[in-house]
């Protein structure tokens, strides 16, 4: 029961816990940087909202059809194309390359949107 030893052990333990917590926090921050974000586009009233969406490389964009009519999401350049999506159905695509991706609804071709990937 050397009080000094106990004190020393206590400080060491606290320091180790602090270091552990700090390392943990740093790891989380690092992980957040590596984890791709998600982005959402709503389809309603024959419109893609937002009409133009800008995302980072690696982002998964998910389109959700909130309209009472089916739509599709079709890249003008053939990069992606959903099956028909009825009300509440979704379509997701992960953009792994930077660029500008115009798309439209192949059923109602006046409906158009763009994904800008940076």
């Amino acid at each position, binding site marked *: 029961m050397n009080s000094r030893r106990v004190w020393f052990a206590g400080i060491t333990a606290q320091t180790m816990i602090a270091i552990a917590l700090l390392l943990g926090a740093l790891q989380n921050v690092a992980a957040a940087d590596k984890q791709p974000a998600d982005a959402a586009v709503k389809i309603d*009233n*024959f*419109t893609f909202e937002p009409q133009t969406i800008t995302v980072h490389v690696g982002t998964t964009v998910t389109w959700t059809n909130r*309209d*009472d*009519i*089916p739509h*599709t999401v*079709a890249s*003008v350049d053939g990069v992606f194309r959903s*099956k*028909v999506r*009825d*009300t509440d159905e979704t379509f997701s695509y992960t953009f792994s390359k930077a660029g500008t991706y*115009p*798309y*439209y609804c*192949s*059923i*109602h*071709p*006046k409906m*158009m949107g763009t994904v800008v990937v940076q």
Partner: protein
Amino acid sequence: MPKHENLIDQKLNDLNNDGVDRRGFLKCMAWAGTGLVWTLSGGIPVSEAFAAKMGKKAEKASFSFVQISDSHMGFNKPANPDVVATLQAAVSKINGLAEPPEFLLHTGDITHLSKPEQFDNVDQILKSASAKDVFFVPGEHDVLDDNGKSYLDRYGKNATAGGWYSFDHKGVHFIGLVNVQNLKAGGLGALGNEQLEWLEGDVKTLKHSTPIVVFAHIPLWSVYPDWGWGTQDSTQALGYLKKFGSVTVLNGHIHQTMQKVEGNVTFHTAMSTAFPQPQPGKADSPGPMKVPAEQLKSVLGITDVNYVRGQKSLAVVDSNLA
């Protein structure tokens, strides 16, 4: 009935201006019953109350057929939770016509999602119609996901590979066109070069006096481009039909009746048997339009077309399902 007055004004605005004063004559005319008969005599539209006209027509008509459109089998949203019932009501209407039609034309959006059971369902319901022959053209809802394979497997047997075709009936030449495939971003309906070339050849040797009926899903005239209500290469198609004295173009897609006369060509769109859509520009988008349940049948309908041998043009009569 304010809605009908708007329709009259719309038709007046669409008519060609050739110096003949139709306005006073047409505005004096009464809108009777559930249908309006438009006939063309010498190029001037003449309208008569439906009930009065039909008696005479039945004796003289060489044949009649019925156009139905946009049954959207599989649709079940508030605008019409029961498209089966309304299609059955359309069949009852067909079966109640004074002159039984010799066949039906379906101008597309047969199904809502191109599903096999939806096509089956429509076939099953139409079996109860007095007319046993049905000629189809696809709507954009009939060619989803598989490039139209399900549609073509069913209805493309007597058609070209692309689904367009023609046939003759008692001296009238019928042409079914497909303008819902390979639609381009920002575009309208499209026929494509292959189909246009086929059309040119199909009508080349026909006499100018042959009455022509063209049927296709999306309107072949520019109804409202902002909503995709038009066909970008229809002018070329109509060019091949310029020589004919009588051309009737029957379309669907817009879920309301609209008519336009341009020289020898009468354009006409049918009501849907499933749900109505707003008039051009009167809503944010051309989607299903909800009306009070008790009014639904009054905005759905069929189109009865009468051909009288010797008369220049066909008489086109719209009836709602009320």
